[in-house]
């Protein structure tokens, strides 16, 4: 079966720093593919190139069999790709519900409507509220996003990704900055999503990664040094040396 996402020979440098170094990677339909790697390995830079915010120097990104390397980010989103942010990126002045409703609207289309009040649109509102209930934020729907805690913001990021109903979710460290209880809740949430959407998950939390991933790739200095099942990765000596060993 053809891969949903297929990255081949991707390169990206910032001045002298090679953030992406001849990177090859694929995400199969329904798969949860995790990427681990030390700080500054180029994980976020990879996501930014996949969603179209940054241009690779060379290489190709194919999504659903189509070369999207030069497709602008809003069109990639419409093709069925969504990303979440390592550093929370929400529309802080808007209400929690409006943030989610906007994501629902992005999938729903019909954004060039000037007459009907969007907040009274039942289709948008009901779907937004259902998503908020799913991530446990229904009680905060009317609050401004800025008023929520960091953990709640992380859940909003997931609700937005869910709202898109994208086939491929690019999740950049959804557990970043969460306490252990919150992390557990997030793992549970992601387990519920897994299988319904293909996910490229970037995560530092090893327990979470080994609990969730179908496949794991290890990124070091922009290059993938190993890809395999969680068991493969655990027993891979190169990985242990380069990465896991440092942690232990």
């Amino acid at each position, binding site marked *: 079966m053809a891969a949903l996402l297929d990255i081949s020979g991707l390169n990206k440098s910032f001045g002298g720093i090679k953030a992406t170094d001849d990177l090859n990677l694929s995400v199969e339909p329904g798969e949860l593919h995790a990427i681990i790697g030390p700080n500054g390995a180029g994980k976020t830079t990879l996501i930014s190139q996949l969603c179209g915010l940054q241009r690779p120097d060379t290489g190709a990104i194919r999504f659903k069999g189509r070369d999207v390397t030069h497709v602008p980010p809003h069109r990639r*989103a419409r093709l069925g790709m969504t990303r979440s942010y390592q550093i929370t990126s929400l529309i802080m002045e808007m209400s929690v519900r409006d943030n989610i409703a906007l994501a629902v609207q992005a999938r729903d289309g019909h954004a060039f409507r*000037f007459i009907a009040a969007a907040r009274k649109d039942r289709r948008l509102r009901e779907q937004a509220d259902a998503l908020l209930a799913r991530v446990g934020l229904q009680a905060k729907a009317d609050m401004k996003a800025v008023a929520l805690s960091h953990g709640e913001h992380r859940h909003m990021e997931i609700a937005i990704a869910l709202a898109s109903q994208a086939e491929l979710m690019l999740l950049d460290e959804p557990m970043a900055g969460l306490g252990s209880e919150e992390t557990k809740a997030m793992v549970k949430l992601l387990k519920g999503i897994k299988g319904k959407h293909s996910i490229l998950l970037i995560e530092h939390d090893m327990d979470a990664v080994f609990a969730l991933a179908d496949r794991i790739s290890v990124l070091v200095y922009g290059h993938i040094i190993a890809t395999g099942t969680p068991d493969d990765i655990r027993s891979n000596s190169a990985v242990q040396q380069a990465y896991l060993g440092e942690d232990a």
Partner: protein
Amino acid sequence: MTRKTWITLAAMVALAVLPPVFYWTGNAFYLDLATRLTILAIAAVSLNLILGYGGLISFGHAAYLGLGAYAVGIPAYHWLYDGIGDWATNGFVHIGLAVAITSTFALITGAICLRTRGVYFIMITMAFAQMIYYLIVSIETYGGDDGLVIDTRSEFPGLNLDKPLQLFGLAYVSLVVVMLLVNMIVNSRFGMVLQAAKGNNERTVTLGFNTYIFQLVAYVISGAIAGYAGALLGNFTTFISPEMMDWRTSGELMFMVILGGTATILGPVLGSAAFILLEEILVDSLTWVEHLLDGILGMKIELSNYWHLPFGLLLIIIVLYVRGGLMGLINRKED
């Protein structure tokens, strides 16, 4: 209804009732003041669509006012001197021209300006407006620097704009319609995207919205409304000069929006009112002090020429210390 809605209604009723009462009680001057205020409020409301709701700090909005006014003055000029048909004095033709020209100008310049952000956007919108300014200055036929007298006002069936009360009525109804229109737009699906792009453009793009197009559409709508306000302004002043469209007027419109409160429907209207009334009061009271000094001490100082100084200070104080402008003062009590 919320407190804000009540205050908006009350303010709009006051604006409808007070000027005619002044007029009937022999204070025609105040009706004039109200008409000017109302027309500038339309321009301010239109600017607020992109500045307040869109976060696009345009420093060239006066160009639209000017273009709208010349769309009245130029056909009227040719009607008088070249004897072209009576269509040239038809109000619908004037407004059609004003809206067509300004939306085209907005589309072309907006397509370029919106490629830039921040200070660059401010500078380039101002540059385009100055371009129009110098273009008009260079056309001798239409008075160049000296401006152009509009010899005949726009003609509408059943409406006589030579009657101050009717001109005010048209301006007032236009303002109400424009406020409702902008309110509708900002609350629509389109408006949600526009406001989201202001809050976090990158996120709005990665959600799947081409924010550039949304901002461009808002830019064109805003320009067209300002062009319409310009056509009204031409009818009010019956004289247009390039000065009407230089960067100072653009700055004044920005001040009105910020003073009244960005991203609110009533804010720009309150801002225009405060701006125009404050200007009037300051000039009056400085003239009064002038006479007093002259009468008592025999000092001849033309104080009223310096009204900009206290005016500017007051504006700066309000903008700095009252978050959200005059609407901020009103809303503060709500929470």
